[in-house]
C-alpha cells in the first residue's frame, strides 16, 4: 500500500517547478501560496491543494508572461470560480431533491 499525504514541504514545492526560494517568498507575499504551518520561510508547510495553485501560478507567470500581481488576481478569481462551481453543483443537487415529486 502507498501512503498518501496532504502536505508539501517548502523544499519539495520549490523543487517541483524549479521555483527558487525567493520566488516562493514572493508567492506567499502575494497570497498565492498560503503556508499552513511553519514559523520561518525554511520550514513552511503547504497543503496539497494549495500546492496545486502554486504550480498553476508558476505556469501562468511563465507561459503568459504575467507579473505576480496579475497572477495573484487571476489565481484568486480561479479559486473563487472553482469554489462557486462546487457550491452551484451542490445547491442544484439539493434543489432538485426538494423540487422532485416523491
Amino acid at each position, binding site marked *: 500500500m502507498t*501512503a*498518501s*499525504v496532504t502536505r508539501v514541504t517548502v523544499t519539495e514545492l520549490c523543487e517541483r517547478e524549479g521555483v527558487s526560494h525567493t520566488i516562493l517568498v514572493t508567492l506567499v507575499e502575494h497570497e498565492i501560496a498560503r503556508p499552513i504551518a511553519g514559523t520561518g520561510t525554511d520550514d513552511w508547510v503547504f497543503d496539497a491543494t494549495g500546492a496545486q495553485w502554486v504550480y498553476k501560478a508558476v505556469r501562468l507567470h511563465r507561459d503568459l508572461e504575467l507579473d505576480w500581481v496579475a497572477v495573484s488576481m487571476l489565481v484568486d478569481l480561479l479559486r473563487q470560480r472553482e469554489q462557486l462551481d462546487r457550491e452551484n453543483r451542490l445547491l442544484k443537487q439539493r434543489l432538485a*431533491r426538494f423540487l422532485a415529486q416523491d
Partner: protein
Amino acid sequence: MEFKDYYEILGVAPDAETSDIKAAYRRLARKYHPDLNPGEEAEANFKEVAEAWEVLKDDTRRAEYDELRRYGGQRRQEFEPPPGWQSSARPDFQHVSGDFSDFFNSIFGGAFREEEVARDFGFRGQDVEIEMPVFLEETIHDSVKPVHFEIPVFEGGQARPLRKSLRVTVPAGVTDGERIRVKGQGGPGQGKGPAGDLYLHIRLVPHPLFDVEGHNLLVTVPIAPWEAALGVKVTVPTLSGKISLTVAPGSQSGQKLRVKGKGLAGKTGQGDLYAVLKVVMPRTATPEVRALWESLAEKTDFDPRANWGNRS
C-alpha cells in the same frame, strides 16, 4: 513525421517581426492555456502554440527553422531532418523533457542530447493529477482505494504509455475539491532526477440520500401535511445507521432539524446532520379525504399569501 508550420500555428506571416509573433503567441496562449481552459483539446492546442513560440522567439532557432522550412516544408507528411543535422541553438533544460513534439525534438532536442543531459543532470518525473471519486461513507474513516492510471513516458524522444496500478490511503475527513499527494508515484525521473508525484483530486460522489455542506450532511425528510400539523416521530437514515427524530407540531416545509455529530468527519471535529422537512401532498384523494380537506378549508382563516399585502 509531419512538418509543423509554426507560422501557420501562430497565424503570422513568415516575415513577421518578433514583436508581432509575441503578440500572436500571447493572444493564443491566453485562449488555450490549460489552467484557464479545462479540456484536452485546449491543452493540445496550447502545447502547439507554446512550441511554435519557443522556436520563433529565439533568433538562432528561428533561422535554423526557416532553413529547414525551405528545405523540407513542402513535403508535409514525410519530413525528416537532413542527414547529420545538428542544431546549434542551446537546448532549453527546462523543456527538454516530454513537452514538445517529435518534430521539435528531432530538430532542437535530439534523442542523444536529451539522454546525455538526463544522465548528467537528471529530470524530475512528471506530476500526474487525476480525479478520484470518493463515496461519502468512505470519508468517515481512512479508506484504502485502488487507483489505475496511465502516464506517458518519454524515451529517446518517443512517448509510450505506462500503466500504473496502486492502492492509496484516502484520509478520513477529505472534502470535495481537495488534493491528496502520493509521493513518487507520478512519472519516473530521468537520469538522476526523482520521480514525480501523483495528485488525487477528490470528487465526492453524489449520494442517493445525503447532500453535503462543508462537513455537515443534509437529508430531505418527506412528511405528510397532517404530520407537519400534528407532529410525528420519523425514522431518519444517517451514514451510521438509523435514528428516530421528533418533528414538532406546526413544522414548516424547508425547516431544518439538527442532529449533532452525525455529519462527516472533519479536521476540526465531527460535522452535524440536518434533516430538512419537505411537506408532500398525496397525489390522489378519495371523495372522503377530499371532503375532509374541504371542511378544513372552511374552518380555517389561514392566508399563506398574507405578506404579499396589496401587491398581489
